[in-house]
């Protein structure tokens, strides 16, 4: 049995907004096995970035913990005193933001920024820091002489490599990467993902990779959790979830994705939009867009249930998943929802 490095239990994060309190994450549970890459996939507003940020406890001023736990090696990150949390950041848990520009200061040379982390946070002396900075650049495939360059002198892909080097500076065990390749061209994207895979294997890292792109999940992740409207609706190993999804939302996501293989056919959109989190619908949050919703779905929130092994899903019709998958593969099934949600 693999060790669980991070155990998120029923986590809720709320934002105070003008109209009230909005739970961006609302009862999300997820176990991250050590030494794996776990994908956190979902669309805009599903809470994936809020969840990822909450794990570092770096959150906007209007956000608060509204419940639940995130146990990192047995300690709850949500209630750890700030001084303790600060000791974990960089050393144990590191963050790679979506846009590397957000983690790099444009007015300092990247080497200076890297050494600042190594000296200021890691307590290294200048000489060791310099050697480590060169080593880190080597690890992410950048020539060490470029430590003297400013962020704007790097291409988007190279900046993302710098951001990865920065995150790895103090040898963390858990790396949280928020859409690390989203803004990049396909070729650069693939090269960065290859680099990430190599580093993860080489260093035995545990990675949480936040993405909206199931193909990125398919390429690098061992496990995946699918989020919808603040909740984890399905989780399991990547092959099972992507080839035998049990939640209709996951089925829909897989169908909506354009491929290079197979027939060019018609892509199947999921009609409608995610619910307003200020006033989420009662019952299953996907029910208003789900072609398979029955009365129970609109009344009662489905519990997360195990399907087999580590495969989990929150759907009232979980027992019929196989039949639903067959129906979900047909365009008409989803098209029929167009009028309902309009």
């Amino acid at each position, binding site marked *: 049995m693999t060790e669980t490095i991070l155990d998120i239990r029923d986590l809720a994060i709320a934002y105070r907004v003008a109209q009230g309190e909005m739970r961006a994450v609302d009862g999300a549970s997820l176990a991250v096995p050590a030494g794996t890459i776990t994908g956190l996939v979902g*669309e*805009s507003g599903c809470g994936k970035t809020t969840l990822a940020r909450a794990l570092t406890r770096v959150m906007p001023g209007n956000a608060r913990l509204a419940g639940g736990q995130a146990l990192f090696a047995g300690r709850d990150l949500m209630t750890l005193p700030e001084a303790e949390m600060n000791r974990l950041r960089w050393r144990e848990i590191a963050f790679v933001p979506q846009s590397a520009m957000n983690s790099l200061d444009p007015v300092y040379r990247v080497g200076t920024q890297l050494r600042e982390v190594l000296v200021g946070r890691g307590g290294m002396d200048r000489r060791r820091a310099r050697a480590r900075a060169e080593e880190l650049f080597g690890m992410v*495939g950048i020539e060490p002489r470029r430590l003297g360059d400013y962020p704007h002198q790097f*291409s*988007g*892909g*190279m900046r993302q490599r710098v951001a990865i080097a920065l995150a790895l500076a103090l040898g963390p065990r858990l790396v949280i990467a928020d859409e690390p390749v989203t803004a990049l*061209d*396909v*070729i*650069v*994207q*693939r*090269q960065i993902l*290859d680099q990430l*895979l190599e580093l993860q294997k080489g260093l035995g890292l545990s990675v949480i990779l936040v993405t*909206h*792109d*199931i*193909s*990125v*999940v*398919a*390429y690098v992740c061992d496990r995946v959790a699918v989020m919808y409207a603040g909740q984890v609706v399905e989780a399991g190993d*990547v*092959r099972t979830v*992507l*080839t035998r999804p049990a939640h209709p939302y996951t089925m*829909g*996501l*897989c*169908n*909506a*994705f*354009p*491929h*290079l*293989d197979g027939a*060019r056919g*018609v*892509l*199947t*959109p*999921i*009609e409608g*939009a995610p619910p307003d989190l200020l006033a989420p619908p009662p019952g299953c949050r996907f029910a208003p867009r789900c072609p398979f919703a029955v009365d129970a779905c609109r009344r009662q929130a489905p519990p997360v249930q195990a399907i087999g092994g580590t495969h989990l899903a929150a759907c009232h019709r979980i027992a019929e998943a196989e039949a639903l998958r067959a129906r979900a593969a047909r365009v008409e099934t989803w098209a029929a929802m167009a009028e309902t949600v*309009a």
Partner: protein
Amino acid sequence: MSGPRAGVPLIEAEDVAMHFRVGSALSALVGGRPALVRAVDGVSLTLMRGESVGLLGESGCGKTTMGRLLLRLLRPSAGRIRFDGEDIAALSGAGLRRFRARAQMIFQNPFEALNPRFTIAAALAEPLENAGIPRAEWAGRIERAMELVRLPDPGQFLARRPHQLSGGQLQRVVMARALLLDPDFVVADEPVSMLDVSVRAGVLNVFREVRARLGLTAIYISHDLALVRYVCERTVVMYLGRVVEDGPTEAMIEDPLHPYTRALVAAVPTPDPDQSHAPLPIGRGAPDARNPPSGCRFRDRCPLAHDRCAAEAPRPTRIGARTVYCHLHG
């Protein structure tokens, strides 16, 4: 799509170039030379009526600049672009206005393409007013455009402002706006890149459907071959301001001829957990349009480059329905 006048060229671009001078006034003061960026550098491209062509390449390959040139949002530094037989650089006055109505742009970011203070009705009326369409026709045209992009019951949307619509609905409004003046030609620049996957499909379906119904000639600009495949029968691959391969999309995916196309095809992400993790057949590094390599521009990242690639730029070679610019085939 074979429209009633298929086989007749609508757009003919001949050896088009767009060079930008970049470098700040400040750097000029201290003696720095402004650099010349050859964003587009000798592109020839013919689009038949009703044809839908994908312009594919990485950031900086010149695809967006090429799209803007074809709409005369930019004037080329060299070369000529004919639209329906007329040189668009020579257009002015009424002729230019007519061209502007016939050739439309669908913008990338629907959240920015519409003024947040305007209602959808106002956003849709604006181009009609600018084009001098009689007010009596407005409602009919707006209704028809909204119906084309499958925003049924326009009454529901017209009084709203952009923030009250979802991304998918907004992008359909942006598309409707481009259709109001009955264009013959549209350029769509990464129109779904800002949208979530579940709504992307709907917008792509609408694009495909509208194009077929109206017999539109279209350019679809993207870096994602899977998207291009979905809406374009033909694809033109660009690299550092030049075309490297041009031909039917399916054939290109099955058997890419240019080494760059090969890398692009291999890099397309797929949702298949068993996909190949083989290293991409391409060198690292980003293409630099200020300082492109001699000869073939791809040669410094090409795994198959040889001496001739540095010495001379490859000439176009026809192979079946495809044209490839590579010495391996020339």
